[in-house]
């Protein structure tokens, strides 16, 4: 069981959260020409690293806020949690 510290609510069990994927992926800017390659990168391509991974979670059974979690994909150690608009 993961224990995730929601920046709004404090330490909660994994059951309260749902996963949202890689948080480093950036959507191409709005109202600008987007090349197929940029769109491909954004929609489909993922690094999926071993080790530190910055990812989105939603505290869906809590405050319902999206948060960022820095977690190790091999050991599941959680290094840091952030509000969705904060940078590491």
């Amino acid at each position, binding site marked *: 069981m*993961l224990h995730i510290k929601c920046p709004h609510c404090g330490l909660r069990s994994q059951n309260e959260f749902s*996963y949202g994927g*890689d948080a480093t992926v950036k959507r191409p800017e709005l109202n600008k020409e987007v090349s197929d390659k940029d769109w*491909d990168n954004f929609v*489909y391509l993922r*690094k*999926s690293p071993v080790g530190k991974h910055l990812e989105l979670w939603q505290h869906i059974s809590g405050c319902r806020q999206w948060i960022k979690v820095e977690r190790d*994909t091999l050991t599941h150690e959680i290094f840091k949690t952030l509000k969705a608009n904060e940078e590491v």
Partner: protein
Amino acid sequence: MQKYSVFSLIKNAFKGHKDWEVAWKDPTPKSEYDVIIIGGGGHGLATAYYLAKEHNITKVAIIEKGWIGGGNVGRNTTIIRSNYMHDENGLFSEFGMDLWRNMSQDLNFNVMFSPRGIINLAHSDAQMNVYSRRGNSMRLNGIDAVLLNREEVKKIIPMADFSENVRFPIFGGLMQPSAGTARHDAVAWGYARQADSMGVDIIQNCEVTGFDVSNGKILGIRTSKGEIKAKKIGLCVAGSTNILAEKLNMTLPIETHLLQACVSEPIKPILDNVVTFGAGHFYCSQSDKGEMVMGGDLDGYNSYAQRGNLPTLQHVLTEGIAMFPFLSKLKMLRTWGGIMDMSMDGSPIIDKTHIDGLYLNCGWCYGGFKATPASGWTFAHTIAQDRPHELNAGYSLNRFSTGHLIDEKGLGTKTWIS
């Protein structure tokens, strides 16, 4: 190679089983091969076997970080099926079914293929409609499919929950009678033994640390046992695909996720099919030893851990108990996890890459085991002929950018969502 038969068994029994040949050798790597396959799992071993058998390419090495059969080919729930709706998946898998049916004879190794049938349960009228559509698509592709109503399902699996006041009543199901199971370890060992006998070097405990690429052309690999040259290299490493892709500066439409499975204590025979719960993600069969073999959802977040987390297991088994209430009385014998190469449309990739001589086989998601022979066969063809076979032409790497996705489950890019 020593042929396995009842006669060789009797002969060796008289000699106290001391004269059996080793099933495969333990060679030191040569400095150069025609083809190197990275990954000694089911798919890698099958690829090497079909390279030798179908294409006469025997100067082949399989490079395996751990031991052969120690990854997902030894961690799956052994289900074999071809009940897909889309042509690409259906025709590919049905081709594989033919290979499965002849595998024990072909490999001279009993893989215990047991075509016991799979039933996907439906729990609403809408789901029955979806299954009837899928069944019709299957039949158009020459795959057997039978739509069962509630009474017909009850005859086959009377131990399922057919009571009146359940949350997900059984409306019926879609059955593929020719689907089944096989002994997963035997598949790896059978392919390894045959490949070895035809001259393939199986090199275990050898980790790939880097690649030699020059002017867009692959020249060889660097490993923990030294550098090895090859003009053609195939990647067949499932959940470790992204680790090797990073060494090649490639980013792929793949995320690595963890999938758990478990077996109960052995009980007397009760279930002679594979059954899946339609209102969630749970599947179950009974092994020849009597254990109930069960699996379901991914843990749901990127993971390389090869071991799972309890909340997912609890969730999956709750579904199992909703389907088969008797499961609640059983003790759990073992649970384990494997790391899945989850592609962004839920379908695999068997293709060339932008690097000349580098070939990619990945993205098997939940369904790698059943694909073992067809994957090996088509990957061997792709490597030997330097172009995909028509069976794997749809499994292209660039289908994501061109929009030709094969979205069998309609999950979009978040294939970890259950």
